[in-house]
């Protein structure tokens, strides 16, 4: 019974939740701007629309461009299934596969191809996007690994499934969770690091990279973004919820529901923040991400402090 339940939850996580999260963010953002906004299910309609269209492909593009959305989505699917972002939904024997270093490097594989594909069409927009994406990753990933490392130190294991099935020091969980929210904004190209809705090419990062994608190619890319959003925001939310001492002991079903509610809540909060903040100018991005790094370092210091 329990296994079927896990399978069901994983399927919902994979198919329904990511696009719902994107819809919630859009809706709340529209409300913040005094607009009615599109329906919450609009991302689903968009995806169906893109899939029905035919593609336009640059003459310069090679196989890297054609295969990038597939590799990116494949990596995102595997990562979303492995990371316990909505509670531990995998049998405990899978713990070694949920190693956070593996997940981060797996996502880097997707990013590597995404940057190559952006450069593949010979467009300078792709170049500027890829170059900035590389810079943002460089600023965000060390903090990500130090933060998760600090969280992992309490359990002596770098497997996320083990970390989230055991109690954590609430201070570390709070600091790392806050750092993860900041880093997630950068990794997902959201305000204040990048504006996912703008179409002025010179200011964008993510949109500039996928400027040449269209039709099914674009649908797969957008879906991968939705999956990665769930993963990063979910991971941040799980870490923040670990501040509550009994959270890890909850039964599967209540924990799953609370996690999803938390995830959508965080999405709404991000949308509110996007409503009241502006995009930082490019040169100030390192300063913003420095907050994430400092939070991670503080967590690391607490984690190694003698008891």
């Amino acid at each position, binding site marked *: 019974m329990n296994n079927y339940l896990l399978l069901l939850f994983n399927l919902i996580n994979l198919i329904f939740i990511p696009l719902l999260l994107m819809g919630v963010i859009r809706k709340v953002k529209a409300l913040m701007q005094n607009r009615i906004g599109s329906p919450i299910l609009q991302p689903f309609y968009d995806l169906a629309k893109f899939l029905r269209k*035919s*593609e*336009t*492909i*640059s*003459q*310069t593009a*090679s*196989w*890297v461009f054609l*295969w990038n959305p*597939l590799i990116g*989505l*494949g*990596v995102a699917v*595997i990562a979303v299934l492995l990371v316990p972002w909505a509670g531990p939904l995998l049998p405990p024997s899978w713990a*070694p*596969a949920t190693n956070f270093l*593996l997940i981060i*490097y*797996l996502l880097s*594989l997707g*990013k*590597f191809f995404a*940057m*190559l594909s952006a*450069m*593949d*069409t*010979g*467009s*300078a*927009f792709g*170049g500027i996007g*890829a*170059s*900035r994406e*590389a810079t943002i*990753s*460089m600023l965000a*990933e*060390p*903090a990500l*690994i*130090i933060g998760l*490392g600090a969280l*992992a*130190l309490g359990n002596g294991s*770098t497997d996320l499934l083990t970390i989230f099935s055991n109690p954590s020091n609430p201070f570390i969980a709070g600091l790392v969770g806050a750092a993860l929210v900041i880093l997630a904004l950068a990794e997902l190209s959201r305000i204040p690091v990048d504006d996912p809705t703008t179409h002025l090419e010179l200011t964008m990062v993510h949109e500039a990279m996928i*400027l*040449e994608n269209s*039709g*099914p*190619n674009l649908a797969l890319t957008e879906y991968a973004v939705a999956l990665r959003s769930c993963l990063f925001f979910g991971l941040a939310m799980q870490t923040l919820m670990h501040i509550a001492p009994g959270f890890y002991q909850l039964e599967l079903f209540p924990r799953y529901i609370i996690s999803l509610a938390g995830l959508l809540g965080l999405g709404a909060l991000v949308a509110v923040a996007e409503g009241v903040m502006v995009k930082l100018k*490019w040169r100030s991005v390192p300063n913003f991400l420095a907050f994430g790094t400092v939070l*991670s370092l503080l967590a*690391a210091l607490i*984690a*190694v*402090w003698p008891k």
Partner: protein
Amino acid sequence: MLLLTAAIVGKNEIITIPLPWFLGDAGFSMLIDPLSRWFLAIIGLVGIPVALFAPGYLLHLQKQVSLGLVWAGLALLMISMAGVVLAANAIFFIVAWELMALSSFFLVASNHEQKESRHASFIYLGATRIGTAFLMGGFLWMHYLTGSWNFSDWGISGFSALGPALLIFIGLATKAGCWPFHLWLPIAHPAAPAPVSALMSGVMIKTAIYAMARLFIIGPHINVPILGKIILILGAISAFWGVIFALLQHDLKRLLAYHSVENIGIIMMGLGISMLGSLFNQPLLIQLGLAAALFHTLNHAIFKSLLFLGAGAIDARTHLRDIEQMGGLIRRMPWTAGAFIVGSAAICALPPLNGFASEWMLYQGFFNLALSAPLLGFRLGGLLLMGILALIGVLAIACFVKAVSIAFLGNPRSPQAEHAKEGNSGMVAAQLFLSLLCLGLGLAVPLLINPLGAITSMTGSPSQLGHVWSIPIAILTLLLIATVGALAAWRFTLVSLKPGRKYNTWDCGFGILGPRTQYTATSFAQPISRIFGSIYHYAVEISTKGRQRRHFPEAVNAETMYEAYLETKLYRPFLSAVQRFAGTFLMRLQAGSIHQYLIYILLVLGLLLWVGVLR
């Protein structure tokens, strides 16, 4: 003929039997144990593809270099490297070491009609001389302390071992290309023919890693606690330094050479935490660090030689080394491009390739240091090192995205790139062989745990590596391939139902984009270079020409520049001082007069007699 020799040497080495055997008297004894077998395997695995690649590559150089010299040098280099990792005592080691240095010097100098090549070979020769001087000093001191030339008798510790340990370390670090002794590396490697660069960067500099493991970690070793910290810190600096300078390079082979500095740094961090493990008496830490370092040594040998061969293939077909002149090669050299992308993903430690496996082990080592070190500073250091390794990893990704995308993707930026052709079958086969090894070694980690365990158990406690590698990488890779395959099938069905169209890249309505409107390597690296600008004085200077300069410029010139402080502020004044000294004083000693030389002989003879009488 020599090709066969090299290949056979390569093949024999992998299946060598682990028996300690001795040749002649103590002067030429060899020792084969798991550690030397590991390095012999590395030499062999890189030797085979280099032998495959070289005939095709050397065709385009046959007017400039003497092919016989190159082949003889390659064979000698292979044999002397094998000698270095087999030597059981210091005398034989130095002989092989010198043979290795000289044969590689001749190979770097093989294209000696070019000024750049001559300059590079002299700098390389100077570096090896200085390195060997330190090494010999250290070996003599050790002989004085232990009364033996055999490495197996060199198990000393305490304060007295500090001097020789430091001398030996500086000698080895010069060969390895560790910061701040790395200067020769980005100069010598690009000047050599590509198969030689592959061997030098992939294998030769690793012999220094072998010697560090042999002398400082395994079996009876020189035990100096402070050395572990020095190696760890210098390793971290090397790794960071190598990668940020690599980002600035446009010469493909020089970029790869700076990545060798980076990877040597990563390997040395592994050795460093291994030595910290023995300081804290943590067997798991000792073994993790050593295993990560040795595994990364193997992996780096594979993917770095793959990348150098790729750069060589481009060089042979287009005569280009500057990536700003390349572009669009993925259509013209598809196999080389595919292999280069695999090699780049491997050096960026992306799963499921081999670089990931060894860097993951190093991460586990740092995590273990953070868990088990008795002192707060070291525990925090363990976590920070994880962050530093992550930073280095992301910078490597940025650098290789730059190299791959500017060289292979987009439109060709020069006529040479436009008329490029794929290399011949031997060149392609060599690159495919190495790319498959990258994937194979990444998936077959559980099979490698045993040979690695055999080496790490030589540190004095039974191997604990069995439980370390826990990631089911093969299953996950299959899962990934299945997912991507299913998605591909779906997508290509969709596309075949509704065929798309081919059109120009989006040009904002200005007209078709040319090669010059593409992003350049310089601009790709600019944001990151600016962030680290204070390390190398990064600056961009833009000048415009024309009467109405501001609004209607006739020509706009943008130039980026950087300055490596270590070279301009430390080495250059020192070298020019040496040159001044040599020019004014030393030159008089060697004036070319036979009478003067006769006096020297007489004086030395007298001195020797006097010393003999005194004893």
